[in-house]
């Protein structure tokens, strides 16, 4: 399976309210299947600004059809800096180069284990794959404010499994999504008595630090973000400190066991 291919943008859907956008691209080659937590490196073909590819989690894979013989890849992106803002403005038809799927995804959940998903901000993009794989698991989703919420993938989510919090209370509960999680675990502690609890999280560094302090009685896996050059483990640029020494986020991760990583500063 070729992990380096070209693709063209078939949809670049802008949210009116926020800087979030959905990019749907059509690969020009057949690809390998991606696990939840794996990601792709994207860039406009031939561009030198930005020079490097940008890592994005696969939000969804739409199977092959007549127009898209290799299926299509969906990314949910928050325009935050120079590269994502340029990507946001690329019209349909723009040629991209893509590497992926890369990285090690979230570990599979074994029978008898209980899964809870936690997403903070644009981290939701990385957990869509999990939601599709494990439909209906409890999902904790925190955003700063309603406009930043990405609800397209959550419309049919069982309401009693969806726990939303926002900093300003504009959607869901006001406050931290981790407070919701804490209360839930206290209240529904019983639900996972049958097996080991697994918490898969994707969000900002600060969220992981807070989670580390919570001393959760669970295997907590988190997806890390660092600046990257190659995305395939060769430049050694995306190093992160772990209890076992340096590891590469793009290759050894991006998903790590929370207790293995050294959350400095």
């Amino acid at each position, binding site marked *: 399976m070729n992990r380096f291919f070209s693709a063209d943008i078939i949809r670049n859907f802008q949210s009116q309210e926020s800087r979030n956008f959905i990019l749907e691209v059509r690969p020009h080659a057949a690809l390998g299947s991606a696990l939840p937590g794996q990601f792709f490196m994207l860039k406009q073909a031939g561009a030198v600004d930005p020079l490097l590819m940008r890592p994005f989690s696969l939000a969804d894979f739409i199977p092959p059809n007549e127009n898209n013989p290799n299926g299509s890849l969906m990314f949910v992106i928050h325009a935050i800096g120079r590269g994502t803002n340029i990507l946001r403005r690329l019209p349909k038809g723009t040629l991209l180069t893509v590497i992926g799927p890369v990285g090690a995804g979230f570990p599979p959940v074994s029978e008898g284990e209980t899964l809870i998903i936690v997403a903070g901000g644009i981290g939701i993009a990385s957990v869509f794959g999990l939601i599709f794989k494990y439909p209906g698991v409890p999902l904790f989703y925190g955003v700063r404010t309603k406009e930043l919420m990405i609800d397209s993938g959550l419309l049919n989510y069982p309401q009693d499994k969806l726990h939303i919090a926002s900093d300003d209370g504009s959607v869901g509960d006001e406050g931290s999504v981790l407070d919701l999680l804490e209360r839930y675990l206290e209240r529904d502690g019983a639900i996972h008595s049958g097996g080991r609890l697994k918490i898969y999280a994707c969000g900002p560094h600060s969220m992981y630090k807070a989670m580390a302090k919570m001393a959760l009685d669970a295997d907590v896996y988190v997806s890390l973000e660092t*600046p990257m*050059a190659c995305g395939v483990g060769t*430049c050694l640029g995306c190093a992160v400190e772990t209890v076992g020494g340096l590891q590469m986020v793009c290759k050894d991760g991006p998903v790590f066991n929370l207790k293995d990583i050294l959350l400095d500063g």
Partner: protein
Amino acid sequence: MNLSVDIGGLRLKNPVVTASGTFAYGVEYAEFLDLNQIGAITVKGLSTRPSKGNRPGRVWETPCGMLNAIGLQNIGIDAFIKDKLPELKKYDTKIIANFYGDTIEEYAEAAAALSAADGIHALEMNISCPNKQAGWLAFGTDPALTQKVVAAARGATKLPLIVKLSPNVTSIADMARAAVDGGADALSVVNTITGMAIDIESRRPRLSNIVGGLSGPAIRPIALRMVYEAARAVKVPVIGMGGIMTGADAIEFMLAGASAIAVGTVNFVNPAAAVEILEGIKQYMAGHSIDDINSLVGGMIC
């Protein structure tokens, strides 16, 4: 069409070389391109003992370029020979082992250890990494010390010895002469240029090492000028590098005096770049009725 070039006794079937530190140990790229098509593969800088490099905050993008402060993380010469070389040498390409030491003795030791291995075709001596401490930097910036450390490595190997020069100097010509006086068979020009970037929100440097090496198209005009100056200063062949993205860029370096070219940062944004650049070189030659690539070398008309 003759694409074959001679780099100080190392004969390459074509002038496209992958640059050290941007192509891992070669084998990692087998999935992306046909390694047999590359002139030579230069592996990540090796030291006698494994090195874990710098703390995170290692890469940062800048306009048309990137800063890196990997800090020469590598698995060490022994592990390379044991775990990587056997696989790598199955390919029909030349293998250049890039190496460094922290002392003159370590340079000689590393050169000797690599020369003892079977399947390494040439050594590239890195005296020009911008992520090291002030004392170390003198290897690549003080001509007298350059000559001395090169001579030590020279004494320890019979393989073609390529010395990789730093662009962070007043006179690349002086450095080129010093390396040749020390016994270099060829020169690699250039390594990365020292730069930095600051996060204005946290006020912290983007790289844990504060400074790092700038590479990519941003530095191409500077690298090209240095290749031009170095190639005119010495008689040994020069491998030109710095920001090469396309076949046209490669031709520019050869016209400036490079006998071969190395591709670095471009591997990160196009892991098949080496063969595409080779293709571009061939197209240019065909389009300009050039039979022998060597006729391009230093062919700029002033």
